């Protein structure tokens, strides 16, 4: 409605459009054509979504030559907005001198923001492409080192992506 109460239309309908039935048939042609187009839905358990390297799945620790890259500096646990990461440092004979004796991520708290990955100076914690996280208890949701470690081969795509875009 305009200010003077008159109906304002950008364009008046033609007689064909007023009859309405041809327009319905047009619409039906569209919907029927839609039936034969490919579907977006995945048949989930059989057919899984394969994320791109840019996908932020659950955070994991990078394992290189059988040892984690992490030097337990604690930046990730510092930056984590939801306080999901707990690190305890210890000394080691290796070149890096420090390693995390305990590294835990509470996956119930984690919000997948990727800050830990961004802040890490050693590229030791990265976001993987895993998105299937199921727990039956609070305790089970706390991932220790044994569940967080992943080899560089498995994380190749993500590490490559980070090298290009950081």
């Amino acid at each position, binding site marked *: 409605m305009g200010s003077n109460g008159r109906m304002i239309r950008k364009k008046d309908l033609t007689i064909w459009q007023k009859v309405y039935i041809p327009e319905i048939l047009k619409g*039906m042609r569209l919907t029927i054509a839609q039936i034969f187009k490919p579907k977006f839905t995945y048949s989930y358990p059989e057919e899984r979504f394969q994320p791109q390297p840019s996908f932020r799945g659950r955070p994991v620790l990078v394992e290189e030559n059988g040892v984690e890259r992490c030097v337990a500096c604690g930046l990730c646990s510092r930056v984590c907005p939801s306080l999901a990461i707990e690190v305890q440092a210890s000394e080691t004979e290796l070149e890096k001198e420090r390693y995390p004796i305990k590294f835990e991520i509470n996956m119930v708290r984690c919000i997948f923001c990727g800050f830990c990955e961004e802040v890490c100076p050693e590229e030791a914690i990265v976001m993987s492409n895993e998105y299937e996280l199921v727990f039956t208890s609070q305790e089970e949701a706390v991932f220790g080192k044994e569940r967080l470690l992943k080899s560089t081969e498995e994380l190749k795509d993500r590490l490559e992506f980070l090298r290009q875009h950081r």
Partner: protein
Amino acid sequence: MESIFLISILKFVVYVTVVLVTVIILVYAERRVSAFIQDRLGPNRVGPWGLFQGIVDVVKLLLKEDIVPKNAYKPVHDLAPIISIAVSLSTFAIVPFGNTMELFGHQVKLMIADVNVGILYLLSITSLGVYGVTLAGWSSNNKYSLLGGLRSSAQMISYELSMGLSVIGVLMISGTLRLDQIVLHQARYLGGWLPAWNIFLQPVAFVTFVVAAFAETNRLPFDLPEAEPELVGGYHTEYTGLKFGLFFLAEYANMITAAAVITTLFLGGWHLPYVESLGLSPLTLSILQVLTFCVKVVLVLLFFIVVRWTIPRFRYDQLMNLGWKVMLPLALANVLVTGLVLLLI
């Protein structure tokens, strides 16, 4: 005499089974087609391609608890779904699904009841369907249900007029109320090649009848009685379990009946064009005709489904405008023109 009685019972049993099974398949088909239109997959888990989904849903409905609201008027609350289902099942009884057939040495008409006022029976019984919906809305003692019930009664009454008037055009051409005679009348050819189906003779009546049928079956674009965004569930908001199932069944059975009636009145019923000249045996011909009828009904049903996912819902004033200011005059004009043409020929 006895065998005629037996044949009637046989026809009845076959008919009820076929309708109920078709309802299950129809619900599945609707969900599947709507999913495909929306780029989804739809139910595909239970059985091959999800075909048993309907059966599982029925079992679920049967096992559910029957909840009656505290302030509902129980007798009517119980009665309403019964009316709905009885009406929708009894309408189908007069639809002929095949030509007269030789069976056990009898001439069997392939329809449940050979009523000589066929179309009148049809119109009057479908009018009764309003009671089911309105009483359900009223007895639930819920404002959404009541609004849904009121809307549906107004809608059905408005569209019944144009429905009845569009049928008159067909009546004037075929000169009979018997549905089997109407089909026989359509089993001819115009100019030697075009089947004399009423859709070609009465296109305007066809359009008005189909639109009215959509409104009568409460299907989108006229599903105002149960418009979810406005009225929660409409008249069946307060129904659960088996009673809700009956409403659901009635709705889809109504759809099948509407499709069958459209087929009979306008699409030549069981008539398969050009097949008479092939010289097939009577039995083959009968089976072929029943199959033709089924295929036509299925196509009309698919049309119903696709329309549902194409057109948005009408507003209430638009619905009434369309019913009274467009459909009714159009149907009346159609009767007038048909009368004039019949006079002149």
